[in-house]
């Protein structure tokens, strides 16, 4: 009769440990399904565009200056979050706080500028089909930015309370990943709504 | 196999070969002479087809159904055998070995794959045969689906010659006819199963379906896309006639209502203008309602209320006064009429031939 297996036991990390934590895997699944959501939103955009007989966009080519600047702002906020993460890895709490505050400020700027961009549009959500698409897609993204800002704010509070150090920082990795996702998905939204009409 | 059909409706040569391949092909003859009206189930597309847009599909159905039944029996047999077969006695706690039995999967899947590949090829060939008519259709009909009836139009460059009728599509026998499908409201499904498969009528789109009847007769059609309250009562008919009869019918339909109809002193006419003309139109009168079936040649039609009733004077008045009971939810209201009004309206409607 064969012997029962015996594991050789090694020391195992206890609790949330960076990318081997359950939460990291959780946020990856969340990002996958959210990425699909944006995929379907853009599918609607391109499908209706391809089926439309009217001029697209109906009010002429969109201006690129403000949204272009806004894109740069959003991407730099991602860099700030990255700095914050690096900070925690190296036990430099100040960098973490600074990075998160900067990311929050930049993210808020993005929201404010996006609101201005919205109010500058000559059409609204219920003006025509293009307006419906434009405001729904950018609205979905805006909702994600707002949620992301809330996440960053929580991270800032937690970091301020000294919850994280160079060993325990899974929440930073997880929250940061969400923010990076929100930024990357903007590139797709921006390319589709702003750059694509120029092609 | 004798082909009794006129040359125009013979299937393409590829299809003919296919037909011969079909073991059950001999039944073509039997089903082709069976008059559509006498069918026990007028929508029975599985046993009956009356034109080249439906017949190859019917054979495909037979082949697939035959294979399915055969496979079903084989699996049932294997399953029963597997359950019941004698086995060497073994200890209560004995467990069979894991690594046996793969040949079942190899063989079963192998055979299924071969059969399947053949079926894919066969169904592509059928698709090719029924997707487009063998020749350009001579007649084009525009059918617009409404909640819950069908507007049927025969276009003509001269608007005066334009024919508008309802719930009845007349076609010449032995010729492909192109049906352009539109919808005025929601999605409906256009289906004359013994002549062709179904196609959705989608608002904002113009879909196409071709039909052809090889023998004269009346072929029942039905809406197949769920569209609301009276979806069940949204039928229609395709009537195939000899080319000469079709021409005669078309000529008659092009005419406005006869001059005796629009007599302003006629109380029936006044009643119609008062109560009906908001929705119904009669060419040659002031009635031009766009929402409901055109009644110019009402009495030339075989059925009423989208296939619900046979078109008789009694049924017609029954429909006018009790539409909501007969077809609940219909856009046609039940119209209250006194006895005198009823008679007047009935007399007026009887002139719409």
């Amino acid at each position, binding site marked *: 009769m064969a012997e029962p297996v015996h594991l050789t036991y090694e020391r195992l*990390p206890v609790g949330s440990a960076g990318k081997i934590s359950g939460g990291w895997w959780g946020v990856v699944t969340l990002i996958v399904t959210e990425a*699909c959501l944006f995929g379907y939103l853009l599918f609607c955009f391109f499908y209706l565009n391809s089926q439309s007989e009217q001029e697209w966009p109906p009010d002429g080519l969109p201006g690129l200056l403000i949204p272009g600047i806004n894109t740069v702002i959003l991407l730099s906020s991602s860099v700030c979050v990255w700095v914050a993460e690096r900070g925690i890895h190296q036990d430099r709490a100040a960098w973490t706080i600074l990075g998160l505050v900067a990311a929050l400020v930049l993210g808020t700027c993005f929201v404010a500028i996006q609101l201005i961009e919205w109010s500058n549009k000559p059409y609204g959500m219920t003006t025509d089909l293009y307006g419906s698409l434009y405001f729904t897609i950018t609205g979905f993204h805006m909702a994600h930015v707002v949620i992301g800002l809330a996440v960053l704010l929580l991270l800032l509070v937690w970091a301020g309370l000294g919850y994280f150090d160079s060993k325990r920082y899974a929440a930073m990795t997880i929250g940061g990943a969400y923010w990076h996702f929100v930024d990357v998905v903007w590139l797709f939204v921006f390319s589709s709504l702003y750059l694509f009409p120029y092609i | 196999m004798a082909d009794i059909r006129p040359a125009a409706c013979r299937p393409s040569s590829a299809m003919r070969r296919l037909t011969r391949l079909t073991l059950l092909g001999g039944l073509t003859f039997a089903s082709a002479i069976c008059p559509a009206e006498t069918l026990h189930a007028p929508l029975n597309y599985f046993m009956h087809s009356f034109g080249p847009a439906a017949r190859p599909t019917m054979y495909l159905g037979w082949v697939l159904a035959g294979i399915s039944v055969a496979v079903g029996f084989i699996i049932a047999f294997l399953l029963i055998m597997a359950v019941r077969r004698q086995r060497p006695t073994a200890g209560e706690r004995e467990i069979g070995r894991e690594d046996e039995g*793969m040949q079942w999967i190899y063989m079963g899947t192998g055979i299924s794959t071969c059969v399947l590949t053949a079926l894919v090829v066969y169904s592509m060939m059928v698709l090719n045969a029924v997707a487009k008519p063998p020749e350009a259709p001579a007649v084009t009909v525009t059918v617009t689906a409404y909640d819950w009836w069908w507007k049927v139009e025969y276009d003509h460059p001269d608007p005066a010659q334009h024919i508008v009728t309802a719930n009845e599509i007349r076609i010449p026998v032995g010729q492909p006819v192109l049906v352009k499908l539109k919808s005025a409201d929601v999605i409906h499904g256009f289906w004359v199963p013994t002549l062709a*498969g179904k196609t959705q009528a989608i608002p904002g789109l113009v879909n196409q379906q071709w039909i052809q009847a090889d023998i004269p007769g009346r072929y029942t059609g039905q809406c197949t896309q*769920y569209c609301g309250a009276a979806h069940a009562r949204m039928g229609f008919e395709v009537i195939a006639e000899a080319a000469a009869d079709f021409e005669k019918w078309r000529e008659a339909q092009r005419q406005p209502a006869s001059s005796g109809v629009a007599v302003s002193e006629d109380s029936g006419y006044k009643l119609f203008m008062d109560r009906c003309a908001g929705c119904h139109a009669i060419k040659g009168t002031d009635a031009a309602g766009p929402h409901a079936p055109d009644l110019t040649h009402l009495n030339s039609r075989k059925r009423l209320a989208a296939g619900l009733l046979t078109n008789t004077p009694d049924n017609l008045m029954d429909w006018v006064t009790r539409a909501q009971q007969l077809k609940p939810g219909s856009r046609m209201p039940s119209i209250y009429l006194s006895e005198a009004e009823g008679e007047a309206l009935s007399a007026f409607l009887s002139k719409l031939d």
Partner: protein
Amino acid sequence: MASADITPPRIDDDFPARLPETGRAPQGSDIERKLAATWESQPGWRGWLSTVDHKAVGLRYIVTSFVFLVIGGIEALIIRIQLAQPDQSVLTPEQYNQLFTMHGVTMIFLYSLPILSGFSNYLWPLLLGSRDMAFPRLNAFSYWIFLFAGIFMYASFPIGQAPNGGWFNYVPFSGPMYNTGPNIDVFALGMVLLGISTSVGSANFVVTLFRMRAPGMTINRVPILVWGTLTASVANLLVVPSVSLAFFLLWLDRQIGTYFFDVANGGKPLLWQHLFWIFGHPWVYAVVLPAMGIVSDALPTFCRRPLVGYTAMALATMATMLIGMEVWIHHMFATGLPTVALSIFGAASMAITIPSSVAVFSWIATIWLGRPVFKTPFLFFAGFVMLFVIGGLSGVMTAAVPLDWQLNETYFIVAHLHYVLIGINVFPVVGGIYYWFPKFTGRMMDEKMGKWSFWVMFIGFNVGFFPMHWAGLLGMPRRIYTYSSRMGWDSVNMITTIGSFAFAVGVLIFLVNVAVSLKRGARASENPWDAATLEWATSSPPPPYNFAVIPTVASRHPLWEDRLNEGGARSNLTEGMLLADGRETVSTSPIDARPMAIFKMPEDSYTPFFLGLFISLVFVGLLLHWWLFTAASATAGAIALATWLWPREELAQRATTQGATHG
């Protein structure tokens, strides 16, 4: 294979880490008592509201979805009374339309996937040798949302304003022009809400599979049910957003005035069909693959041998979904798309037969080469194989494009989908309940009543639903509230009605059996069926901590190893990691299941319930246009979520000043 795995991290000397304590923990030992105290939920309503135990959540899923099954079944019976004879007026058309819509919505969304989530929630940690799912609170949350979404979708039923657009709810019929009541809004918002439940549940399954298996349970040793649910969950993560988006856009069209589906303003009805079926078709596989997994895992127990072709079956499961995700167009053959596209999608749809035949021949070979034990579950599983084949064959017929132009939207499709959903979902589920009832409750179900329930259900089902194929071939369209006698459908409908009532009697016998056996069934031992998998290695019902000792797995059939005699090492179920410092379990690497970390599992918590409640109230607010209420509920939800996520020392989510616990 190992190369694809994640290497366990190198641990810094000062990282909070410890050598897992190992040993034995027999019933009644100190360590066992400590585990029981740690994992037990509070008694009474507090525990009921706050428990995150996957077994409690699983049973709730099962019971709730069975309630929905009964409701949907009663709706079906009323429909069958209306259709028993031509030109009946038991129901008005509007009542009929609401009933058939709610029947479909209930069965497809509120029964068929949730019931399988119930099985998987209950069974996964037991099958995988873990103490809970990866995210126990998320699990509880997913159940609450499912329950609230179900209630939400029925909210307008009592006022005669139930959804009436059919379960696929085509626009523009379901748009603001043609459906003005609250019915479609209830459906639309309810579906978005339910989508949240499905998505988080799916995420939980995916992470659980990859991280929560017992040491040694390598990826090629997990039971087929796990493969089925994993495949379904991955698909759900990818396609549920599509339907949620579609329903949300529809709600915007109806309530805000956008134009996505408004033809007059450039919107396209076909966009709805694409978005719906991109989701809808994989969903059909999501509601059958786990059920097929139930059979693949339980049938071998009654054949006294392992499943034939484990690897082929696992691959077939994934292949089915992979193809299934590409073929949504086959629901749209009649929409006027180009013929070339149709033939590609038709061929792809037919190709699904290949993995299906792998499954069929694997089951038949398992029975053939085994020694069947004729207990009730076996009957259900063997009957299932036949129904699977019939449902599959009618599926092949509809995949042939030109034939589908005839079959589509007729009763042939109704027959096909009932063979799929009842044959491939209900039969395995009922068989599965007979099988796992002793594990769920500690009591056996009654065999005699069990056999009666099978034969009445099986015969009733076939009498009721097989003639529907014929009705479809005779041209009977689906979703008609009545028909005229001249159509020739009278007798076939009468037979169907009789059969469906017989089927209902069979279900009733089963329910009576459940009720009686709960009270008076014979006590079940740990492993009453002499089965092979890990859930039978613990007591019936299992203790709150599942396994006092985390099992170490050495094969696919831990409880049959000695008798299979395949050589190699033996699984170790009596000695191993104890992990009793609070709620803990071991997390392993995704492929080879090597221990990677000790996971701190959360205590019971009210936050899942409250978060679920607040999110549901957001939807109530949206439905009623109470914008302030919506905002308030959203804020409350955000607070609940922040509470939930707040890093806690007990869960080792925060930096500790003392450094490592247990050095």
